[in-house]
């Protein structure tokens, strides 16, 4: 049970897909004109993530390793189709607002990333909880960004106008505003040195420069692994250096002590 709660915490806070991992930027920028849209997109993605994670985890021993990516894509695409039809039938308003971005959930790298890096290696329950955690993290992030854009741009909260029209910064609900809001967000993260994919110190040797806004789908999962490995190596190196320094200091001390010991000897 603890492990499941840990998965939720991991998805919502520690590895938040939008704020920390910077995955799935296309829907993040496109649908966050209002908090409601962000919420709808987030929840649809959550549904897809949970079901696809569970299915992939269930089938992980049957799918041959060589064709796993196409197999994952087919599973994800089927789930997305189901979600799309459900939305069309029961919440047509959300379906119309999100439009083309619903079928594009298939190419959202969060989903394939989780399938590849978590669901294909873990049990069904954990994978489902991982999907819930990641999905909720994504939902919360989209809703927050949507909330800020809607409040400043259209002066409303979940559709209810609270700021008079003279004070709207309407560019924020238009296309350029999405870029500006995200720019401010990443700049703040850089400023406060918060854990974020844009914060990789000094750039890395990976093709994409360790800049995770640039990755997508399977590439990103691999790159994240590489970055993690590089970070681990760096930490190891630092630790080794520290140990070496400590040892050197110790040796120096010992030598000094020995010298001090031999000095009186020499004096004698």
């Amino acid at each position, binding site marked *: 049970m603890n492990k499941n709660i840990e998965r939720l915490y991991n998805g919502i806070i520690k590895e938040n897909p939008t704020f920390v991992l910077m995955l799935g*930027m*296309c*829907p993040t*920028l*496109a649908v966050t004109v209002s908090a409601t849209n962000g919420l709808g997109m987030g929840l649809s993605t959550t549904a897809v993530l949970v079901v696809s994670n569970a299915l992939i985890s269930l089938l992980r021993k049957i799918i041959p390793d060589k064709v796993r990516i*196409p197999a994952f*894509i*087919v599973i994800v*695409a*089927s789930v*997305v*189709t189901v979600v*799309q*039809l459900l939305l069309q039938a029961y919440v047509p308003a959300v379906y119309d607002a999100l439009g*083309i971005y619903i*079928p*594009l959930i*298939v*190419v*959202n*790298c969060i989903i394939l990333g989780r399938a590849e890096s978590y669901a294909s290696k873990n049990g069904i329950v954990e994978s489902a909880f991982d999907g819930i955690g990641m999905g909720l993290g994504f939902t919360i992030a989209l809703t927050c960004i949507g909330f800020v854009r809607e409040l400043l741009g259209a002066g409303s909260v979940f559709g209810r106008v609270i700021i008079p029209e003279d004070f709207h910064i309407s*560019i924020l609900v*238009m*296309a*350029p*505003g*999405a*870029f*500006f809001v*995200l*720019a*401010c967000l*990443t*700049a*703040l993260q*850089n*400023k406060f040195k918060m854990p974020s994919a*844009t914060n990789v110190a000094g750039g890395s040797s990976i093709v*994409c*420069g360790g*800049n995770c*806004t*640039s*990755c*997508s*789908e*399977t*590439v990103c999962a691999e790159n994240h692994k590489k970055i993690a490995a590089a970070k681990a190596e760096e930490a190891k190196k630092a630790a080794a250096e520290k140990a070496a320094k400590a040892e050197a200091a110790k040796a120096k001390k010992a030598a000094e002590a020995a010298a001090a010991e031999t000095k009186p000897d020499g004096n004698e």
Partner: protein
Amino acid sequence: MKELLLLIVASALVNNVVLSQFLGLCPFLGVSKKIETAAGMGAAVVFVITIASAVASLIQNFVLIPLKLEFLQTIVFILVIAALVQFVEMVLKKVMPALYNALGVYLPLITTNCAVLGIAVINAQKNYGLINSIVNGFGTAVGFTIAIVLLAGVRERIEFNDFNPSWKGSPMVLITSGLMAIAFCGFAGLI
């Protein structure tokens, strides 16, 4: 003819795929450090999107609609596009090695470009025929190329500029894209 020209202008400039529809942001932000690589990526995108929209339109109009299987659209399109990119890569390698050497690095990256699937879905939603689909796909890809080459040009210029370190890197790229998006809003009056 006039209609097709309007379609190209609309898809390349007015509804620019990256700056107003937010498709294909990943390569847009990632492969735009240098003008040459940006142009290479753009050329590869033009190539793949044009072929992909033709194939997707053929499948939509001659297989899915007659069989009343439109709901399978997403699954079919994504598989076809993934297979198509692999296939294009193999054919290019065999038939046109020079072109392959120029575009080769970028081709695998395109499988994961959501613009390709996005255009296929848009074409299907708007009920475009084969010709319109190809023209729309081509126009969109040209729009992508214009945007990414412009961004790369700006990025080369501002690379060594002295501004607040917090804004270095992706925040400044995003601000630049935002300003470009404002500029592209001006094209709305064209049609």
